[in-house]
């Protein structure tokens, strides 16, 4: 009788322990995804890229900024010309993304269609483009 009770208690303990380990691991995975999204956001909004005036043919490192959060329209247009797979490989990211830029006179989107099934991280930041205030959206999953 006592042996059965001990067995069941041990089983419950093991299930609880596995649950805790699993939830810790999945929260670490989410943190990793968040980190990658934030790094990608930083790359687009704070960096100029390489070479400084890069185009779709000679780009080594992607960045859309003239200065932090002030974006270069030429670089945005060059990015649109590029194949999504090539962009992903230059950025060195594991996940997928979509970006949107909206100002009063400009509107663009680039990247994969945002899925409804996956957990998608959305980032929204103010930007300046052609002396206009606008919004930059990054979806990362």
């Amino acid at each position: 009788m006592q042996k059965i009770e001990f067995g069941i208690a041990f089983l419950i303990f093991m299930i609880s322990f596995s649950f805790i380990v699993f939830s810790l691991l999945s929260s670490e995975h989410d943190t990793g995804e968040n980190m990658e999204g934030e790094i990608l956001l930083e790359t687009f909004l704070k960096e100029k890229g390489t070479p400084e005036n890069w185009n779709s043919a000679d780009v080594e490192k992607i960045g859309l900024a003239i200065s932090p959060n002030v974006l270069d329209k030429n670089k945005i247009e060059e990015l649109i010309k590029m194949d999504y797979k090539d962009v992903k490989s230059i950025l060195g990211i594991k996940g997928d993304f979509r970006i949107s830029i909206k100002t009063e006179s400009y509107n663009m989107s680039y990247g994969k269609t945002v899925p409804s099934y996956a957990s998608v991280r959305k980032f929204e930041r103010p930007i300046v483009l052609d002396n206009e205030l606008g919004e930059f959206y990054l979806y990362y999953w």
Partner: protein
Amino acid sequence: MNRKGYARILESVLAGILMISFLTYTSERISIERSDLEELKNIGDDTLIVLDSLPYEDNSFMYYSLKNNPDLLYQKIGECVPENVDYALEINGKRYGKETDKETVVCRYVKIVDDETLIYKIKIYLWYK
């Protein structure tokens, strides 16, 4: 096994389920709140950078509005933050906007206006609606 034995097993199962739910809920809640506040801080910092980079009347929007119309700066911040975020502005200790009892993130910025060496200590308070 008698009824007492079954009751003890049931008790342990229920206690285990309660413990698991509580731990999972608490750890998820803490990590969501922490990342939300970090995101709010980044939005605030970028808002201050953008308003100082936005050209306006031969200078930056921040410069113009600090010298001429702080209310304009308060309104413009509303165009920079997401719809689910509320905010208040403070310039040299004077507050513009609402008070709140919600958890607030504060972003600080110091703007020095060269010609008259005026120093503006700017703070924006951000919180989720």
